[in-house]
């Protein structure tokens, strides 16, 4: 009887497309919002994710998240190196500075100091210039979004004219020369990211202890978490794997900002709209077809089959709506991916899975409500004109 169910469903075009639209809308809204939410929250830890070449972060034990980093004494570096199981360790600096542009404007910037010799933590993808140029005096590499933020008047003509390298500005009265532009995950606060050598970063952001992180890697075959534990034991500092530090920062942002609530409301709204539109329309559809279902029941179609038919209809609507919804969502992110301040946000796999669950819930709910009408339906209704 499945084909009968589908023909019944498709027979009423208005409701059919209404249903699909409702589910699509809900799926679109939820998947898009969930993805944006995940993307935005992940931004709070994007500098952690961007360090691809060192999986262990050592920092002050009182730290709560990435942007709150007291300095470490210089000898901590050698102490971490001395811990058994540590393959290598290098210093890393993350601080904030105030950049003074040639035209007199000021910009807050995030300064990342990479170990002079190894450049551990360097950006992976360069859009212009060479990473090796970072060894030049006063050299900095800036991220794409930061470049556009620093020189917004050039953002429009970038595609045509490209990045202007070797331009200078000042941080903390020191000269900085842009030798490259890289791609980096957007930071939570949209500040430009400046990569520079460690020795130079301490001049840009004069702090008592310039090194606020030690980046390390475990020897091959060593368990990273075990090495972290050993580092903590030996140095008294907090040592976390990339994942752990990432989640620590994420949890801090989730717990201490209103972002989850805001997004939660929107996502719940999407769900409710989905339930309302899809559930309501589906219910109406079933109610309108009560007579036909009644006829089928009178003609000897069992209740289980009737329920199966309704479920199938729900499934078709749900699947089509879900597909279109996530497709729209993907389209949205594909279109916005070229916009700098939205870059890095994309449809998340977890959002797709979660939204599939939510759509299934919507469909089940709608089916459940409608099926109740069918099961208590007195077949005698079919006789009444």
């Amino acid at each position, binding site marked *: *009887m499945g*084909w*009968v169910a589908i*023909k*019944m*469903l*498709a*027979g*009423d075009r208005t409701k059919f497309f209404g249903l699909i639209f409702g589910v699509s809308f809900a799926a679109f809204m939820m998947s898009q919002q969930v993805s944006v939410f995940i993307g935005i929250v992940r931004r709070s830890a994007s500098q952690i994710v961007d360090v691809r070449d060192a999986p262990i972060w050592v920092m002050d034990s009182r730290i709560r998240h990435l942007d709150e980093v007291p300095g470490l004494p210089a000898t901590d570096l050698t102490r971490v190196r001395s811990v058994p199981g540590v393959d290598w360790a290098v210093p890393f600096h993350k601080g904030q500075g105030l950049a003074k542009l040639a035209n007199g404007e000021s910009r807050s910037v995030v300064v990342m100091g990479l170990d002079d010799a190894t450049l551990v933590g360097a950006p992976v993808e360069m859009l212009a210039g060479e990473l090796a140029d970072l060894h030049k005096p006063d050299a900095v590499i800036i991220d794409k979004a930061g470049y556009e933020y620093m020189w917004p008047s050039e953002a429009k003509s970038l595609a045509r004219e490209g990045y202007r390298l070797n331009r200078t500005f000042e941080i903390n009265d020191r000269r900085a020369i842009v030798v490259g532009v890289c791609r980096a995950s957007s930071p939570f606060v949209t500040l430009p990211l400046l990569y520079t050598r460690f020795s130079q970063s301490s001049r840009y952001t004069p702090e008592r202890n310039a090194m606020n992180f030690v980046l390390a890697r475990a020897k091959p075959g060593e368990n990273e978490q075990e090495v972290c534990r050993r580092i903590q034991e030996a140095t008294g500092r907090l040592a976390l794997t990339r994942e752990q530090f990432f989640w620590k920062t994420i949890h801090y942002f989730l717990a201490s900002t209103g972002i989850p609530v805001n997004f939660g409301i929107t996502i719940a709204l999407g769900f409710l709209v989905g339930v309302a539109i899809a559930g309501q329309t589906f219910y109406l559809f079933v109610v309108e077809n009560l*007579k*036909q279902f*009644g*006829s*089928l*029941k*009178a*003609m*000897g*179609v*069992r*209740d*289980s*089959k009737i329920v199966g038919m309704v479920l199938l209809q729900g499934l078709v609507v749900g699947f089509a709506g879900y597909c279109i919804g996530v497709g729209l969502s993907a389209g949205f992110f594909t279109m916005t991916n070229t916009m700098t301040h939205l870059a890095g946000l994309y449809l998340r796999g977890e959002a797709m899975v979660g939204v599939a669950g939510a759509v299934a819930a919507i469909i089940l709910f709608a089916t459940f409500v409608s099926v109740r009408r069918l099961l208590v339906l*007195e*077949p*005698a209704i*079919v*006789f*009444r*004109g």
Partner: protein
Amino acid sequence: MLTFAQEAASYETLDSNATAVICCGVTKEFGRGDGKSIALRGVDLDVAAGEMTLLVGPSGCGKTTLISIVAGLLDPTEGEIHVLGQDLRVLKGHKLVDFRGANLGFVFQQYNLLPALSAVENAAIPLIALGIKRREAIERAGELLNAVGLGSKLKAMPSQLSGGQQQRVAIARALGHEPKLLVCDEPTAALDAESGRVAMELLRKVAVQPGRAVIVVTHDNRIFDYGQTIVHMSDGRVVEVERGNA
């Protein structure tokens, strides 16, 4: 199909004009307390197989309630009802549904065709419900539609058919699985005189068979001539039974 054949065979042993439906003191009440209304007040009725029985009476006299009970769609408040030798009170749930599917056919006042299905697909539904494969069911439904004179309209959608044509599709649908009892609820009420006449002719020619009882509920006196037995109802009671009509 096999079960249907077996069951059909079991009824074959009965006299072809044996009693198909026996109602005994059937009472039906709706609601409770002050809102209680009594639809049937102890109906005793026998319906013979092999003929057409008309159930007539004014609106609200309980005709529809009675055939609903006969068709197993409603439980009587009191009284016994035997259909084709089966006590309906002992059949519950899907057994009742299966019994209906195998033995009963329905023709409704509003035809109740599924608007999304073509004529032939509509006619095939009871066969499919019985478990017959879709292609075979549609083939047989096509033959049935031929028999009711709609061989050229197999693929037509209900909305493209006239009322009379729709009712003929409904009749074909009701007869496809060769039910032992055909229940028709005001089959002509929504039709013009000519279409009504064609439908009734069709019922008399195709539906009335030996061993099959046909109950037609109507208040359309133009068709009284088609029934062999006319049962007059009023206020929940059978007031008169005319037998050997026409």
